[in-house]
């Protein structure tokens, strides 16, 4: 449970740097718990742009398991538009 990161409502260029740093900090904090898959909660995402999506796709290169939880309608829609639906489906875990 502790390994969940809540994405901000505005996942866009204006907060991209901040969100990346927060993600990195969170990854570092959870570096020990390698056995537990990392969860990124995307329920709150209301505003998303290309930079925001790019940030998420960068997670693909993580060398440990992770998944997206509860992607919001806005995020799903944006992924569909940019051709990331398949990618999204691969990384979303519904529980």
């Amino acid at each position, binding site marked *: 449970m502790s390994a969940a990161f809540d994405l901000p409502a505005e996942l866009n*260029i204006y907060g991209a740097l901040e969100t990346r740093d927060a993600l990195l900090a969170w990854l570092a904090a959870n570096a020990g718990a390698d056995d537990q898959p990392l969860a990124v909660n995307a329920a709150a995402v209301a505003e998303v742009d*290309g930079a925001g999506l790019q940030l998420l796709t960068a997670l*693909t290169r993580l060398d440990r398991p992770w998944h997206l939880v509860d992607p919001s309608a806005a995020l799903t829609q944006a992924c569909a538009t940019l051709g990331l639906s398949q990618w999204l489906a691969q990384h979303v875990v519904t529980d």
Partner: protein
Amino acid sequence: MSQASDADQDFIAAAMPAFISEAGEQTEAIESLLLELEEQPDNRELLDSLFRCAHTVKGSAGIFGLNKVVEFTHHVETLLDKCRDGVLALTPQLSTLLLRCNDQIKFLVQIANDEGADGTSQKSERAELVAQLRLYTEGSKAEVSGTTVAAPATEQAQDKGPTLWRIKAQFGAETFRNGMDPLSIAKYLQGMGKVESMVCGFDQVPALIDLDPETCYLGFEMALESDASRDDVQGAFSFVEDDCALEITAQESTQQRLVRQIDEMPATPRLGDMLVSVGAVSHDKLDELLSEQAQAAPDAAQAKPRIGDLLETKAGVPPKVVEAALNKQQKTREASGEENRYIRVQADRLDAVINLLGELVIAGAGANLLAREARNVALVEANLHINALIEEIRNGTLALRMVPVGETFSRFRRVVRDTAAQLGKEVNFEIVGGEAELDKSMVEKIADPLMHLVRNSLDHGLEPPQERLAAGKPAAGKLVLSARHETGAILIRIEDDGRGINRDRVLQRAWDKGLIEQGVVPSDDVIHMMIFEPGFSTAEQVTNLSGRGVGMDVVKRNIEALRGNLKLDSRPGQGLRVDIRLPLTLAIIDGFMVGVGKSKFVLPLGAVVEVIEAGGQHVRVDAQGRHVVELRGTVLPVVRLRSLYDVESALPDRTSVVVVQAPKGKYGIEVEVLHGQQQTVIKPLGRLFKNVRGISGSSILGSGEVALILDVGSLCDLATVSPQGQASPSDAG
């Protein structure tokens, strides 16, 4: 943000004014598009242009690092995008919101150079606007995911059948920093047709730790089935083109290829040539058909068979291909007429040229005079030719300053709309003759007085809906702003169908205010004009709408300062018409030159009614000490320039009286020599002469002499009051 080098900074500083002016134009366009959309909410093209305008502002602001503009406009753009997707309807409320947003964008652009100018009230207004915009955009989210791709096909060229476009794009690193977004581009493309497949290329995105989140690593491959042309598809990338690897390929049928090639062809107006060059018909066949066409109708009056029909029937060219070629031909014809090719020129450079031309006219006239004196016929002729050319150049150059008044008029749409809404009135606002042209400086100066008159009509003229219905008029009032040319002048007319001027109330007020002597009842025209008297606009009459700084007296003064005049035509209960007549330019008038002693004066030719010979004895002095002359039974006041301006010279044997028409009526000007008609370049008077009454400017004559230009309007006041400065030698002559 990025560390701009000094060179970049210099570049930005140099390009900033251009950005501000262009962004200003874009916001103007946004405003008029929004207003047009209110009238035709389903017009897809308007909506698209609206989106493009907002997008352009955002994009170019991004280049200049104006984050506030980018951020704020982004919200507006998001909302507009929803409108384009058909998720949101552009309701009047929404368009009011967008108009307010546009005001903020305008404001932000204006203060681009000065961050400090952004006040807290503006900030809080923007925060509120963003919140409202969000309400719209987010409120509609649920529906978005439901409807997915609505594919609103662009109506243009549907006959061709859709093309399957394969679009492959890899975006440049600076894309985000320039304020662009692959996602918006994808969304835009989505709106052009049906997305068959879409794959995002993110394999170049590095791991999080190495990721610069503001650098773009994205690309995508899209298959789009759309009626849009290649240019349209490519247009989606127009803002990122410079650093974007873009491949657009089409899979199309032969028919589509022919049609497209015709579309893409440069302007070749001949139908046959077009079809030959794309291989739809052979050259020989075309020749054959052309001669057949010529033989079929040797008589020009007889209708020829159309080559298009012949191509279809005899050469077997598919009708759709012929049609495309015809369309292209039509478009080419239209385009060559209205293609907007502008050069941006600084106004002061143009002014400098016009000024020089004024000098040239004077120098030309001087040379002409010398040539005449030298009695060298060849030289005189050469000079005449030169002068004719100078005149043409001058007219042409003055025409460069001419702009259509429509641009100014359309600004009023917003004012009318907002004012009417504030007053709870309904109004249909019409603009007629917006293409009439007027000198740019005039257009700028006339805007404020016009605005005031328009507001006045809305506020005082048009009645509220119930009152109108009670009076048997339609609930919505009518306000027409029109412009048209009249000999050497432009007539701007503001006409409403409201209650008109309440003559009795105005008269009563004029009595109360002492503007007219108690009990005296002048003509209706005079009474109506009272509303333009200083001090007439009282607290009771001025509401917060009409009383924005300028009173009606200022309106009148401003118009007269432009050498224009005002006329009111009030029909009680039926409406008010305000006519404003303005000269087309401030730089040149057709003058009528007269002389008194050695001094020369110029009268605007338009004001001159007639000239009467007055052998001195005809000019009399009436009981009040005014000079008067009798003309066909009526008595006209006369201004005696000799005594008014203390001209010293020997008294002539005879004088003439030039009868002129002033806004307040006819009067005479007594002069000694008539020099005749002359085009006059107006030079403003120095500050020293600002207070000289009756003179509006000066002009330098070909001989180097200075002539004063008389101001018919203010001279009239001098004629009708009893002369104080004018000594009254009744024995003159």
